[in-house]
């Protein structure tokens, strides 16, 4: 069921990322810009779809994480200038490593999620930047770093823990009686012994 749920949850995340969130952030930036010029003209975004995929991948089966990453990437690309499938590739790599790291640690703590979010944000940014360059676009790397990546990192780190908590609630409900939960437990037990 988690696989079908991905379309709904990621669809909502993508819709929010392309409509309400950028406008609310633009408003917040303009308000903050009145207080301190450091916020002025920045245009970072919350990578909601990436954060949802990351949170799901930490506890789910790898195959399920891949489905979420693939669907999430397609949804990102439908609303960006990137060709279909480009963001999916980036999210698949993030899901693969997030799932792999989570298998290796005894317990996923807040620090782990924060570190994963930081690395995933930088990776997805670099991946998107490279994809846009390959498509023939040119951007000022340093300006983009300052205006887009740094604020995006800040926003993502602020919201990653609540999103992880929400996804955990969804996972517990979905897996209560589902086969994926049983499979996940068996796998986790196997990894520890």
């Amino acid at each position: 069921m988690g696989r079908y749920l991905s379309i709904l949850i990621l669809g909502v995340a993508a819709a929010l990322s392309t409509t309400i969130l950028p406008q609310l952030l633009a408003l917040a930036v303009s308000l903050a810009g009145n207080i301190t010029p450091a916020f002025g003209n920045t245009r970072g975004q919350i990578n909601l779809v990436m954060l949802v995929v990351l949170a799901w991948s930490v506890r789910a089966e790898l195959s399920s994480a891949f489905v979420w990453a693939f669907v999430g990437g397609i949804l990102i690309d439908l609303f960006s200038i990137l060709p279909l499938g480009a963001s999916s590739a980036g999210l698949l790599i993030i899901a693969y490593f997030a799932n792999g790291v989570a298998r290796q640690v005894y317990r996923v703590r807040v620090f782990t999620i924060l570190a994963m979010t930081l690395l995933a944000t930088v990776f997805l940014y670099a991946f998107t930047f490279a994809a846009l360059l390959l498509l023939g676009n040119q951007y000022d790397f340093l300006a983009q770093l300052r205006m887009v990546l740094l604020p995006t990192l800040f926003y993502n780190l602020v919201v990653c823990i609540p999103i992880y908590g929400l996804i955990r609630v969804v996972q517990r409900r979905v897996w209560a009686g589902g086969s994926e939960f049983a499979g996940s437990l068996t796998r986790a037990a196997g990894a520890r012994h």
Partner: protein
Amino acid sequence: MRLNGRPGRFAMLLSMLVICGLLVLLGIAGILAPVESAVATPLYGVNGALNRLSITINRTIDELNNFGRLRERIAELEEQLARRQIELLQLREAASDYDRLANLLSYTSALDEQDFLTADVISIDQTGIARSVTINRGTRDGVSVGMPVTTDLGLVGRIIRVSANASQVQLIIDENSSVSSRLQTTRAEGSIIGQASGALRMTFIVLDEEILQGDLVITSGLGGNFPPDIVVGQVTSVRQFEFELFQEAEVRSLIDFDTLEQVLVVSSFQPIDLSVFDSQEGS
């Protein structure tokens, strides 16, 4: 640290990446356009509604925040309105003279002949790096790549990708956007380039040309990518260095690109392909 225990995991990743690679290639070739439209259609509807909702919320918060300043602004604008009304009367006189002379010469303005198509903005680019928006008009409505997009406040951008029922618009504030423009008063030519900060800069203005602060910047039509005489913005400051060949001007668009709701596609305009001349020169 060993990240994965089974070789199957990595093989699974590789096979998924291959699928993504194929999708990208098919997407670039344009083969996936119908599938893309079918998948995105329900999302476009939801996004359109959400976009309108968020704009309403945003404006309300913004207005509440600026209540004090709005009062002062109203007084300022009322004063300006009075002055503009006088100017309007003078301009109406000039316009009637123009109409009379234009009729005499059987001259019709290029702008009068243009057809516009209204479109709703349904989403903003998610990458954060590129500056583009998606609108709810596509090939079914006669939209094609290269068509300019405007609002009543000026130029928004141009169509860069089209599906059956939606199109992507590269905003003029994107770093890869370049618009041939001229200053309205001095007729100095230049090129409007988007900045990473979301601002606009008019470059390649010859040093001898005079740039007036507050002057309107309009499209020149050179290069054939945009029709002439569409407002792009207003000059806010000038950058001039003796050791450079050209001078630059910072330009502020009158459009708030974060809260775009509706736009107009200039459907009668077809960009002129000048690349054929490049190939002739090469051969």
